[in-house]
């Protein structure tokens, strides 16, 4: 194998690699024969989620690294015989370190970080802000950083050491292929297999959303009001009521806008008008006031009869007083409209447990580190959050209609749960990578690595002779004293690798499938798949929310908003009260007083639409999370292995 030739080119700014420009004679690292760059040691390190770093030990330039006229970017490349190949580009970190005893040698570090890193990362983050992986209702405004988008994706930021491209890379599976490491690639005695903490077994999830359930509108209760009058003896057809104390009722009719309480007021179109086109009724009673029970005698007819005999008549006359009392049953056309401005505190709680399908790495029931809890609360479901789209940006209230009595039962609400289930999945997947395999390999093999790739280890000392997982770090070392070497470390997931069966479609509640259209047919036993084969949960269709006061703000009807309508002093009661006064010898009270006491009074009792909070709790069943199987801990070591 020809000797490696390294190039270390200082450049003014980040640029695409060019062998003719960056692998020149001036950039050549002194190899004992020639070369202008006196570099004794170079170590390239890239760890998952971190910037690639290059550390070089070079002759002290005896000038500040940021001195005017000095280039601050470099290209580090290597020619192993087939032409220069780029290994790293980056910008110098300002301070040159010195080791005790090293005279004339400084340690200079370079970081592969584009000048506009934050802008690039923000652009990537924006492209990842989509439901259900990103849900602003669970993020406080001041916490909505770019890193938030990775919490539910089980991913880290990745910066390419050659292109400086910023991307998100899954911690579960590499996106850019697999680096295969056979026994001939790895140093036999330089392979380490270690286990960190036990994998997470489950995450208990508790989600709470709160919002003000608001709605406005009118409810026409005219027919109920009319019926109450009919029940009270009013003989007129709909929509006409009647009373014998018409002026009193008419004069006391509540004006539009009158506050009733509990979120209700008198509707603007509510009115009463005398039904002049209808004949009014009359109730007339005659009665005798016998308060004065004395008798007056007076002489009546006196004279001679036909026989000539004189005679006379004595009349006895009582002093009773006769009266007549007439009342008018006046008809009124009415329109009884009540207006509501509902404002109710609502709280919805979802609880579930997402368990991981992992191999039994550590069987210890006392280990409480294998269970975590996620609790999240949101007040944003009825606020404008977003944007839902970036071009043009639109902001919408997640619940859309705040009159709804449930958020989680909406499609958007289900996505809110899915978002947090994905967050649980990320934690479980991260903790499932509890086995680490690290080995030394050739410089060339390590140079093909990136933290967007998987590593597959083929080693007879492993169960079934192999293991695979995400590359979490790699190193390339070029040492003038000891030569060149590479190192690869991968995290191996200990899931069982069993995919879930297809999410249950459920069964129709009313009739067999196909009879009713979607949206009419209710289903039970259905599941929603967040990630097919991996993550699925019980559908909210299995739940129906019913408030204990029976009010549905989306369907306000007289039968649900009316507690009662009571008409006291209706026509029948008034007539009975008048008649009762003349049923005795003495008039106490008199008919007029009786009617005044029996004036018509209306009481409309409505169900309040304010107050709360109304609390609904959903206990959701979630299937066990399917996780990648990178190593089979229950398998045997292949026969004949060293």
């Amino acid at each position, binding site marked *: 194998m020809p000797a490696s030739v390294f190039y270390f080119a200082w450049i003014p700014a980040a640029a695409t690699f060019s062998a003719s420009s960056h692998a020149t004679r001036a950039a050549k690292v002194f190899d004992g024969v020639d070369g202008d760059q006196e570099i004794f040691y170079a170590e390239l390190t890239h760890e998952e989620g971190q910037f690639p770093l290059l550390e070089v030990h070079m002759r002290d330039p005896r000038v500040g690294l940021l001195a005017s006229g000095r280039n601050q970017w470099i290209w580090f490349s290597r020619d192993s015989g087939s032409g220069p190949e780029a290994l790293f580009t980056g910008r110098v970190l300002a301070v040159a370190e010195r080791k005790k005893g090293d005279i004339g040698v400084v340690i200079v570090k370079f970081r592969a970080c584009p000048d506009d890193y934050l802008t690039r990362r923000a652009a990537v983050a924006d492209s990842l802000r989509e439901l259900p992986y990103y849900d602003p209702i669970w993020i406080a405004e001041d916490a909505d950083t770019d890193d938030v988008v990775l919490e539910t994706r089980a991913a880290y930021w990745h910066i390419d050491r050659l292109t400086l491209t910023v991307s998100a890379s899954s911690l579960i599976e590499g996106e850019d292929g697999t680096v295969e490491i056979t026994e001939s690639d790895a140093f036999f005695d330089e392979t380490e297999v270690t286990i960190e903490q036990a994998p997470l077994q489950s995450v208990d999830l508790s989600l709470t959303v709160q919002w003000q359930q608001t709605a406005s509108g009118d409810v026409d209760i005219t027919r109920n009001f009319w019926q109450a009058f009919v029940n009270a003896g009013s003989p007129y057809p709909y929509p006409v009521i009647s009373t014998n*104390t*018409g002026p009193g009722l008419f004069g006391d009719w509540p004006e539009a806008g009158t506050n*009733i309480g509990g979120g209700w007021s008198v509707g603007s179109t509510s009115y009463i008008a005398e039904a002049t086109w209808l004949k009014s009724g009359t109730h007339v009673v005659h009665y005798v006031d016998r308060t004065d029970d004395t008798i007056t005698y007076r002489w009546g007819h006196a004279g001679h009869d036909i026989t000539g005999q004189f005679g006379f008549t004595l009349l006895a006359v009582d002093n009773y007083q006769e009266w007549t009392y007439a009342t008018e049953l006046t008809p009124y056309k009415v329109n009884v409209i009540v207006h509501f401005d509902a404002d109710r505190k609502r709280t919805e709680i979802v609880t579930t447990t997402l368990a991981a399908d992992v191999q039994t790495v550590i069987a210890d029931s006392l280990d409480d580190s294998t269970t975590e809890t996620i609790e999240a609360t949101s007040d944003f479901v009825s606020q404008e959050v977003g944007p839902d789209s970036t071009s043009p940006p639109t902001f919408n209230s997640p619940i859309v209609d705040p009159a709804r009595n449930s958020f989680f039962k909406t499609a958007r609400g289900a996505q809110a749960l899915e978002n947090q289930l994905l967050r649980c999945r990320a934690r479980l997947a991260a903790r499932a990578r509890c086995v680490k395999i690290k080995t030394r390999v050739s410089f060339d093999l390590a140079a093909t690595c990136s933290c967007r790739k998987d590593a597959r280890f083929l080693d007879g000392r492993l169960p079934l002779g192999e293991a695979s997982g995400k590359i979490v770090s790699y190193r390339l070392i070029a040492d003038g004293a000891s030569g060149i070497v590479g190192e690869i470390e991968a995290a191996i997931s200990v899931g069982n690798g069993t995919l879930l069966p297809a999410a249950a479609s459920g069964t129709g509640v009313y009739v067999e499938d196909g009879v009713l259209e979607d949206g009419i047919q209710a289903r039970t036993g259905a599941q929603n798949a967040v990630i097919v084969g991996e993550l699925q949960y019980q559908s909210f269709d299995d739940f129906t929310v019913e*408030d*204990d006061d029976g009010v549905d703000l989306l369907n306000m009807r007289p039968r649900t908003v009316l507690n009662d309508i009571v008409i006291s002093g209706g026509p029948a009661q008034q007539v009975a009260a008048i008649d009762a006064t003349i049923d005795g010898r003495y008039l106490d009270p008199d008919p007029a007083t009786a009617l005044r006491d029996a004036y018509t009074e209306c009481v409309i009792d409505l169900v309040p639409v304010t107050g709360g*909070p109304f609390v609904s709790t959903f206990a959701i069943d979630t299937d066990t999370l399917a996780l990648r199987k990178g190593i089979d801990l229950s398998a045997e070591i292949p026969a004949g292995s060293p």
Partner: protein
Amino acid sequence: MLEAVIRPFQSTRPFNRTRIVATRTKDAVETAVLRFGAAGDIPVPQKVDAAADPSYGFVIRKGKDTYREVVRSTEQIRVEQEDNADNYVIIDRAKKSTFDKQKDPADKTATGNGKSYFDTNVSYDANGNPVYQNFSTKDASIELVYYYPPPSNGASPVTVIRG
């Protein structure tokens, strides 16, 4: 309930039933009650000139027959004021009705104390209420059919089907 209508003979499934999430209110809410109505101007009794009616206006009744409606079939119609359609009523117009003869001891003439000064033939119960006798004791029923509009040939708009 809907399932019972659609499949009345289908037994209900014991599993996978939809769960009702009963929402509970934690805090008491204010009431929503609207109360209105007043006595207003009340008519006053009118004195009757005693000389005008020495009989004191009492009605003497010895007996009566009372027919009470038992069945009616109707149709709803909107009746509007001739020159103002906004003023209307919706009434149940009778199409056919049936009456049965019944005793109605509660129906008494308003004579001040429920008794007649002059009718000594009326008997009274223990509470002093008059007990009227029917003119006849034979049971009977009447069924009437109404025609809208009335027949143009001058026939009666009401037909007695059975008497």
